[in-house]
């Protein structure tokens, strides 16, 4: 497989994490502009763990993801009681705070005579664990997709479960859901924690692939993009955000002929798409239709 394709697929895989993270919050009806903060926090945390504390990769990955989840809960507790857009702006403010804090965050350790560690706006270099262990680009891509598959499996289970139904209920009509005897705030916190862990997983994977993270990357553009992926691909299923990522990256990479006008075309297409399908390509109605057809096909007399 050629290196270019591997690199593109790896990018799609990692972006998928943050897209799924934003999507999960969208399911419960919250618009978060700030999931990139947990992506960042986990990138740094896992990088510190493997490059500076000598932890193995998987441990660093789990550590980073959990860190992301905990951070998400800490932020969600004061902010989830804010209505709608106020919550969204709060997430944006928080994410920017995190980014700016990393610009001044320094923590370095001497390893083998060299200083290693995050150095404010210089970023955090030398997260080399993957390369030291001779894992090829292809193998790492498989790792990314293995973790992603795990997350997707989780989402599929979620859709069929009571928790998933409750999330969607809260997303559609929180007050009605309270009227069914459910504590919506508690479930939203749970969703926030889960979303933080997912974003964290992506961040840890990113840090080790890129070997270098700097605060500049974790900006609001990333955050809004992650929302856009879900909204374009469709909010009816976890595959929606994946499709959104694939469309964006695939489009961006493939249409060489109009390379200068990519965003003009793509931006326009997105705007038009949202007029026609405000909840994305695979929105709830589409998913419902697909499920019905699938059932009809399965039960069709031969």
């Amino acid at each position: 497989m050629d290196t270019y394709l591997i690199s593109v697929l790896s990018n799609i895989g990692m972006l998928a994490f943050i897209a799924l993270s934003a999507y999960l919050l969208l399911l419960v009806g919250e618009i978060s502009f700030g999931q990139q903060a947990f992506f960042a926090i986990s990138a740094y945390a896992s990088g510190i763990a493997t490059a500076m504390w000598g932890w193995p990769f998987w441990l660093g990955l789990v550590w980073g993801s959990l860190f992301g989840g905990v951070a998400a809960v800490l932020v969600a507790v004061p902010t989830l009681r804010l209505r709608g857009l106020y919550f969204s702006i709060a997430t944006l403010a928080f994410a920017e705070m995190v980014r700016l804090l990393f610009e001044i965050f320094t923590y370095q350790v001497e390893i083998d005579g060299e200083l290693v560690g995050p150095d404010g706006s210089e970023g955090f270099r030398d997260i080399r664990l993957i390369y030291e262990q001779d894992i090829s680009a292809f193998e790492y891509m498989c790792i990314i997709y293995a973790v992603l598959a795990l997350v997707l499996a989780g989402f599929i289970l979620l859709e069929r479960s009571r928790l998933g139904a409750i999330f969607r209920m809260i997303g559609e009509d929180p007050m009605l859901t309270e009227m069914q005897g459910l504590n919506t705030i508690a479930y939203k916190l749970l969703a926030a924690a889960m979303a933080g862990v997912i974003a964290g997983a992506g961040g840890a994977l990113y840090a080790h692939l890129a070997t270098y993270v700097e605060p500049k990357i974790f900006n609001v553009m990333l955050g809004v993009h992650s929302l856009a992926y879900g909204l374009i691909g469709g909010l009816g299923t976890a595959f929606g955000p994946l499709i959104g990522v694939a469309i964006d990256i695939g489009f961006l990479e493939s249409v060489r002929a109009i390379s200068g006008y990519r965003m003009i075309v793509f931006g326009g297409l997105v705007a038009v798409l949202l007029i026609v399908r405000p909840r994305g390509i695979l929105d709830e109605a589409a998913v419902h239709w697909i499920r019905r057809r699938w059932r009809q096909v399965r039960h069709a007399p031969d």
Partner: protein
Amino acid sequence: MIGSSYALLAIGFTLIFGVMRRLNLSYGPSIMLGAFCGTFVYLEFQAGHLLVAVATVVGAVVAGIYIERLCFWAIRQGAALASMVSSFAIWMQLEELITLLFPERTYRFPPLAESVSIDLGPFFFRAENLIMFACAAVLMVLLHVLLYRTRFGLALRALSENPLAARFMGINVQWIIFLAFALASALGGVAAYLIVGTDGQITPMFGLWATFKGLIAMMLGGMGSVPGAILGGLLLGVIETQSVWYLGTEFRDLTAYMVLFVFLVLRPGGLMGQHTVRREQAAYRRV
């Protein structure tokens, strides 16, 4: 002093939010487009101040109308997220358009005034800042008159208070929204002219910068409140200068965001927008 420019940006945001209950993420880029129109006119035709200002405002308004039609008018009520993401997509579109048409990193823009400083007792001001402040003040007065003494202003305020009732009173909601957008864009255009004129140059980063400053200022003052936007802008200006003074420039933006975050958690209505918060809560409970 720079607070007054923030205030103007915030007013534009708040006007749109007040009538539409949605954020226009493309506001910064749209007025940046206007500023680039102004630059174009200046560089190509050596136009004078007035013409450049007009070009800026017209450019901003045209961009604003484009966004309004495509992202807000065309998307039905209740799909607020779709509008916001759509406006984001257009943001990308406009930025690319601008970098295509104006590939340099920075362009000259007619400065508001020669670099003169004026001493007034213990303070000293640069002429541009004074002009900006004065223009902003004049605009705010005009806006106040517009909002409180004209029928259009009345319709706008009615629409902000209670969209459903406004519709029943025969107010042509679509038209008012359209006008409000145009007004917000025009104000943004003037703000852009003043700000870029103070700097003497324009870069493509202006759109992002303007969006953030306007957003923060609006939130500090209270979403949906014009006097709040003004206060919020001034407050942001003060916070920034104070934090640079006491903590150093790296902390400027960080402080602003921290203050915003604290405000949101403790008092989401900002300085003056508590009524909007209450209204949102009441709407939530309307059964």
